[in-house]
């Protein structure tokens, strides 16, 4: 197919969906019966077309077959079979990421991952790319806070050649000096370009304001200063320290058999040597004393980027299910309160949402929207109203809708090989049992009004908010000050991203 001419969507693809997706799997197994929106007796003789139809019981999910193995060198292998199409996803996930970046070398884990596909002992960067395109495969490496992942997506017909390339990239990266300098320049330029995008500036300012010196307060991609300072030796040392079989899991999803995967893994990764991998540090997280508003000036901006929130919870929290339900009600779905209010009632924005960044340690809770400049103060009033109201008891029907949405919504997350892989990678990273989905429906079902209120009061604190507003300061500041929401701090973009380079 050709690229279509651009289209516009009712809901921003990167809005609600992203925030929901970061909060973890949403899968259904043997769900309870679901009442239809309005129940109508269906007489055989006459059908009332003015009433929604009565629905049958919802389907049970068929989660993928899970098979786990371990090689003598400690490499864990997880195989999830899905034989619908001749496709396979292979993920090597290393349990180390940006949280281990040394001070002053922020962006290291990200740079190391990026360099894996830029040359090996056997192949140049161009040869790797040529082979990948020739085989019709996708081969990428990336890094997040606590994991680094090499990802292969391939037709099974190409699996032999694809795995040879994949293992070469994983085990024998050469980090050629010239390629490192080329990639570094691309990344430094991309960091300069962040100044153009208010939402990106808001994300950076929010993380910094909430987490301060904690690793989550730094940017994963680094700063212009830190990226410039990372040496080839730093990159090699990081790779040698953390990319070890006893710190890694090989996840294989698709049209494969576990025995065949194990045989291939032994051949390709059997000789990979164990190493002593340092634990990631557990840094203290700051506690805010009151609400702070950080206004970052973006002169002429047509909208104000809103980021409100604070420190949320770790992925392993025992409050996982109540948190998901509470967030679905607050800002995690299209009909959520934030979107219903700020978009569908007031028309201030194209979409408002909220989400928890669930990580190894407590990550951020963020409510966000892009608000038309003239309604910045009005929107702040509505945001604060919703962040207070969620602490009251939620009505039973609203709770029931959110639970059903989570229970029944998106068994499609386990539809494709790539979807399955994205569901299971975080389970592996955070040490959550792989049969997580088996009990998820019951655990969502068990969430009560009291649970939702308890987690709302614990994790959403309207009196200790960090509020970041990136917009046209001279227009928005008077209205914000008049609301007296808390301490107000004004910043320029250079305070957030550093001074722009002189041309």
């Amino acid at each position, binding site marked *: 197919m050709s690229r279509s001419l*651009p289209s516009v969507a*009712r809901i921003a693809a990167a809005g609600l969906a992203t925030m929901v997706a970061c909060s973890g799997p949403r899968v259904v197994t043997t769900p309870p019966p679901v009442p239809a929106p309005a129940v109508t007796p269906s007489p055989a003789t006459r059908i009332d077309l003015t009433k929604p139809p009565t629905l049958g019981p919802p389907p049970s999910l068929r989660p993928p077959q899970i098979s786990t193995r371990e090689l003598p060198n400690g490499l864990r292998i997880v195989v999830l079979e899905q034989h619908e199409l001749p496709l396979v996803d292979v993920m090597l996930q290393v349990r180390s990421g940006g949280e281990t970046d040394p001070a002053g070398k922020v962006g290291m884990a990200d740079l190391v991952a990026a360099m894996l596909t830029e040359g090996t002992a056997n192949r140049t960067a161009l040869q790797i790319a040529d082979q990948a395109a020739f085989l*019709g495969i996708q081969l990428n490496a990336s890094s997040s806070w606590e994991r680094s992942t090499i990802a292969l997506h391939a037709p099974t017909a190409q699996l032999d050649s694809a795995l040879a390339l994949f293992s070469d990239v994983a085990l024998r990266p050469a980090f050629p000096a010239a390629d490192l300098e080329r990639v570094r320049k691309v990344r430094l330029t991309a960091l300069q370009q962040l100044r153009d995008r208010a939402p990106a500036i808001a994300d950076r300012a929010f993380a910094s304001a909430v987490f301060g010196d904690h690793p989550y307060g730094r940017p994963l991609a680094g700063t212009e200063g830190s990226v410039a300072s990372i040496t080839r030796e730093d990159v090699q040392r990081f790779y040698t320290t953390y990319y070890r079989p006893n710190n890694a899991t090989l996840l294989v999803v698709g049209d494969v058999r576990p025995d065949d995967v194990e045989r291939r893994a032994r051949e390709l990764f059997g000789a990979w040597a164990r190493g002593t991998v340092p634990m990631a540090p557990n840094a203290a997280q700051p506690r805010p004393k009151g609400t702070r508003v950080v206004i970052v000036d973006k002169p002429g901006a047509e909208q104000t980027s809103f980021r409100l929130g604070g420190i949320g919870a770790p992925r392993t929290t025992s409050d996982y299910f109540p948190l998901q339900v509470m967030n679905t009600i607050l800002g995690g779905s299209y009909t959520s309160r934030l979107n219903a209010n700020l978009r569908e009632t007031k028309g201030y924005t194209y979409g408002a949402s909220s989400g928890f960044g669930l990580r190894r340690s407590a990550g951020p809770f963020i409510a966000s929207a892009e608000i038309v400049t003239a309604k910045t103060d009005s929107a702040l009033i509505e945001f604060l109203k919703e962040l207070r109201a969620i602490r009251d008891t939620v009505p039973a029907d609203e709770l029931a809708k959110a639970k059903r949405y989570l229970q029944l919504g998106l068994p499609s997350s386990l539809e494709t090989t790539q979807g399955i892989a994205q569901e299971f990678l975080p389970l592996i990273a955070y040490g959550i049992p792989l049969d997580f989905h088996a009990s998820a429906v019951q655990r969502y079902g068990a969430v009560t009004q009291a649970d939702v209120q308890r987690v709302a009061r614990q994790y959403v604190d309207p009196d200790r908010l960090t509020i970041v507003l990136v917009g046209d300061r001279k227009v928005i500041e008077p209205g914000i000050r008049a609301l007296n929401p808390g301490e107000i701090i004004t910043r320029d973009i250079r305070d957030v991203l550093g001074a722009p380079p002189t041309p």
Partner: protein
Amino acid sequence: MIARHFVSLCALIALLMSGSAAHAQSVPKLQFEKLTLPNGLQVILHEDHSTPIVVANTWYHVGSGDEKPGRTGFAHLFEHLMFLGSQNVPQGQFDQWLEAVGADNNGTTSVDRTAYYEQLPSNALPLALWLDADRMGNLLPVMTQAKLDLQRDVVKNERRQRYDNVPYGRANETIWAALFPATHPYHWPPIGSMADLTAASLEDVKEFFRTYYAPNNATLVIAGDFDRDSAVTWVTRYFGGIPRNPQAPVRPTVPAFSIPRDTFLVQEDKVTLPRLYQTWHSVKLFHRDDAVLDVLADVLAGDKNSRLYKRLVFDMQVAQDVNAYQSSGRMDGYFQIIVTPKPGQTPTRMSELVGEEIGKIARDGVTARELARSLNSRRASFLDQLASVLNKADRLAAYAYNAGTPDYVQEDFARYERVTAADVQRVAASYLGRPKVVLTVVPEGKRQLMVSGGGK
């Protein structure tokens, strides 16, 4: 009517692949059944029971290309109104009811069509069909000025968030206006102008609905885990009574045109780096050169070894990024190359380098390896398109509308298999040898960076 087939995709592929060389792997057929209701609604059914989800996807054959002068953006604004309730669905309940059964939904508007989908657990299909039928048949009795005014504000914010407050976000609007004549349906983008969004009236809403939102101007695709006979019963029950529009809507006329000479434009924006956009008028979707131009785009900027990426980004390191693509709709198309120079480099220098690389292909052609990289990557993308029922529903609707039959995925891919090196060389020389629209987006106050006719 085409008989139903129960050969699973898996079995089919196993058959195709047995004993065959790796690259002989082909794109599997998408099985379907097509019905037409007496009121003209086209219905396409595709069963896939591998996951207990189902998709209903309705395409109305109207897009921004059908809009009247002074009402740009209206097709999309109207799309928003389709979610605000209908005769039997109170305002706000469309989404509430769907979420309560675990469903997601959205709508999109392009130059050619407006599409609405619901993705549901398989038991909830009748709810989606009932909701879609109610808004197809009974939207206007509950339409109000307040609904229009609200979504007008939302859409204006969409325009700000996705175009106006985004670096380089207004570039294509400027390019389309210069490339396509004022009477051409692609002269403006689907988002429309702020002034025209302001001007849209309740009377426009009513007229638009009566003209375009009729069963004989729509295609409904149901894909996924459903029972065929039940689905046909529901479709007939809910949609069967909606009257057809006896008057076929007037389709936009597409003027034949060519650009007599290069057009040079400059646009100031709040950006750190300038960016160069070069755009040629090309061909519409499924024209015999459409796929050839796709391959040319791959050869120019598809991956690290592509001509422009390798020279400008990898070797010389004078560009931050390069992009090339053939963008084609039902009525027309264009070919675009975009280059962002690195700090200290000029758009004019980028223009010269791009010209050199196009010239090399036009003069010396392309290699077998370049063709193979493009073809094999595209083959894999076709396979990926068949992994989700949402994508399959979209493909079936698109082929039914644009190719005249839903049974087109294999022919779509075969177009790429037929592309030769000589074809690629020919389109580089012909289409990219013609006058073009050159837009330089520059940081505010840096108009001197504009590429103009004075250079190459």
